[in-house]
């Protein structure tokens, strides 16, 4: 009995030492301090935004699993609700989704990478997230296709590896918000003259 108990404990310790899981429930993205644009937009999220999981094995070391759950959805909701006057999230695929809104936005994730202190040889965790933001006008024509390369970095704290990696990922998400706002403010493709649909 004792032998079984000890071997289970040893095995559990072994597996715990080989992988680490980080969960980001809510990145707590604050309201953006910007002037709202007078448009009605729809956001269409890919299915994986409800439960996004990223797994990476550090060569020769343990593997890391980052569970973003629905935090990317919360991030984009906050960005676009701060930037546009009217925002609707489309839950089901529908035909003719474009014609009821000034713009329809489709964000997605192209790639995620991270580095841990064992790789970077310094006391930092870094996270790179490459989002893609596509914006369609009311006819369904793609007017914007931006790659958004976001970066977050945190220094290590004692016994908090998982939390440090999660914080670096949250910083990358905040960086994405900053980049998207800069791009949205700069573009001339979202001018009222190009639109025929008015806010209902």
């Amino acid at each position, binding site marked *: 009995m004792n032998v079984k108990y000890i071997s289970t404990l040893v095995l559990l310790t072994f597996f715990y030492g080989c992988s680490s899981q980080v969960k980001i429930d809510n990145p707590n993205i604050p309201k953006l301090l910007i002037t709202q644009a007078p448009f009605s937009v729809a956001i269409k999220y890919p299915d994986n935004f409800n439960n996004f999981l990223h797994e990476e094995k550090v060569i020769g070391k343990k593997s890391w699993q980052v569970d973003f759950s629905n935090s990317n959805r919360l991030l984009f909701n906050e960005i676009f609700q701060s930037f546009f006057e009217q925002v609707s999230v489309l839950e089901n695929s529908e035909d003719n989704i474009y014609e009821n809104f000034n713009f329809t936005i489709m964000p997605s994730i192209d790639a995620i990478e991270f580095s841990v202190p064992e790789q970077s040889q310094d006391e930092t965790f870094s996270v790179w997230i490459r989002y893609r933001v596509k914006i369609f006008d009311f006819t369904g024509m793609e007017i914007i296709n931006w790659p958004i390369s976001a970066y977050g970095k945190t220094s290590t*704290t004692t016994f908090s590896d998982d939390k440090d990696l999660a914080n670096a990922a949250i910083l990358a998400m*905040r960086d994405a918000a900053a980049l998207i706002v800069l791009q949205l403010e700069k573009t001339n493709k979202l001018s009222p003259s190009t639109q025929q649909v008015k806010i209902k």
Partner: protein
Amino acid sequence: MKNTPISKEKTLYQYKLIALFTILTLSLSSCVTARIEDNRIGSTGLEEGEGVVILAKSYHLGNDTETDFIKCVSSSISKGASRIRVVPTNKFKDLLFPWFEPRTVPSDTKSLTTLMARKQVSDIFRNQNLRYIIWLDGNTDSSGGGGSMSCAVGPNGGGCFGFAWWQNDSNYEATIWDVQDIKNEGNISAEFSGTSFMPAIVIPIPLFARTQAKACKGLSDQLKIFIAG
């Protein structure tokens, strides 16, 4: 075996010895050499109720200032005789999101002027009664170690034998911007270095050169003097 009063006394004595040894070990630290310089450009001062915020320069510019160090300086200058009101860094960043993120943070006073032209941004500065932004740059490094130490454990106990040392260098710079006039008022640089030792005869005794903690204290004290004018 039943505990007799003598064995109880003996155990208590052993606990006291361990506690004394732990306190002694923690309180021991090796020497640190320090240099603090300030370079004043303009005149400073704080009106009643005015406050400051402490931020790290962007890591996009290659800065690696530790979060703990920013917390330490914020905490130190908000305590003591000539304490200064400090707006918490995270609260400030959230209020002004996304304008003080590493990518968007103003890198010079000209960029701050552009940012302050946004009414929502200048309103937050006014509502928070913020007078100065203190930018921190720099970090603490460990380098140039040497020595050797070996430890062993046997059926009758264990122990270590050897000697190891390493160098700790803390180099930080604080730059002070006046938000009211939007100008750089000057900067303070702090260089603290020391060598940490760890001799071991059965038990390793760490003698840390606490350069970061001392740099935090030194820089905070100098910041209080600088801002007071």
